[in-house]
């Protein structure tokens, strides 16, 4: 799995319950990620989101961890909405 700290995905969930559910599943599968406060430009919520350093495709293939509300790709400079296929 890659560890590109410049390129990452921001996975936004509707509730902290869903964030922690995703955290549990991602941890079990050994993904490279961290829980961070949601960047203000991505959501008005004051909670947490997941910053993923692996390829999003690897995650979205796991049916039970993709229950996210929104996803953004960060290229080191800008956030771009990521649309699931």
């Amino acid at each position, binding site marked *: 799995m890659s560890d590109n700290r410049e390129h990452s995905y921001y996975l936004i969930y*509707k*509730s*902290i*319950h*869903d964030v*922690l*559910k995703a955290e*549990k599943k991602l941890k079990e599968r050994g993904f490279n990620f961290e*829980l*961070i*406060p*949601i960047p203000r430009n991505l959501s*008005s*919520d*004051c*909670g*947490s*989101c997941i910053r993923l350093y692996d390829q999003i495709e690897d995650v979205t293939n796991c049916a039970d961890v993709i229950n996210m509300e929104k996803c953004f790709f960060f290229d080191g400079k800008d956030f771009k909405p990521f649309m699931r296929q």
Partner: protein
Amino acid sequence: MKTTAGKNQESAHSSHDMLYLDNAATSHPKPSQTLRFFNHFIRSVGGNPGRGGHPASVEAARIIFEARERLTSFVNGIDSERMIFTRNGTESLNLAILGLIRESDHVITTSMEHNSVMRPITFLQNEKKVTVSAAQCSARDGTLDPMRIKALLRNNTRAVIINHGSNVSGTVQNLKEIKSVIRDALLIVDACQTIGSIPIDIERDQIDVLCFSCHKSLYALQGVGAIYIRKGVDPRPLQFGGTGSNSESLEHPAFLPDRYESGTPNTPGIASLLGGLTLIEKIGMERIMKKERSLIHLLVTGLRNIDGIVVYGHYEKGPAVPVVSFNVTGKLPSEVSYGLSRRGICVRAGLHCAPQAHKTIGTFPHGSVRVSPGYFTNRRDIITFLEAVENIVRQ
């Protein structure tokens, strides 16, 4: 009389010079795990869960998440987001009853219910033209024949509300049999006395809404209850407010668990529940039931051997929660409990917030003396109790 509970293999904390036999009201002493998890939260975590992305808040949310997941699997629920934390069993029952029963609906309940069921449905009867039928349970031991529920069903029966285990007589009802006769009506279960003492299986028994407190046989601190709401069942929330989610919207979130959990939760209490669940997993439900049944056997046999004592319930018949009601001929329950109190023994006398149950077993209006041991009670405690009762009877 020092409580000997601490001598059990699993330690529990009690510094009082008393014999506590009122575990049906709340368990005491609490196991060391309860205090350990509570202590960890207070000393080392301390944040408000889901409010802010900082470590104290996230760690508090993780504690609640883990408690929610473990509690869900404890009752064989499918989806942990449907396990909602409340303040107590009463709040859970109010959410189920006030949130699901609509104007002019019909509701069936039983003659063994606690006031936490009877009062909200009486409110609906008075305010929302709800009609209520109560299935009569057996006068001998409070058992419910499911056919009595079936006979009361109407086209507009919205819900059947059942006390799983009586806080007066210890009687446990067969939920699976009840569910099999109620057609499309929702099965709402009050499991305050059974959870942690008798295995509960939401899927096997097809329970629609399970309501319970966590400070009795789940060994959490007081102030924690929970409700599991089956998918497709959608009660109106009891309160609205901040959830840490969807903050830009003035509309209350529709997703769970946030829909039913607004405001700061009792995180220290929920952390203590995690300790209680850890203890139960360590001991195993089989061992808990075996011990509690053996204590009840000793207690009931001992009481029946004392002349002038009437024991209510039928403990040979099947599963029962560790609750025994009795009376002494010629003495009021309050006199007996005062006699026990003077000897440092804590039991509860009166109606136990369940006047209907006392009417059913024939002990209304004075009620009974209720003695409820717990996992940390030992055989010596029961013998001490029986000796004290014998002394009081002779006086």
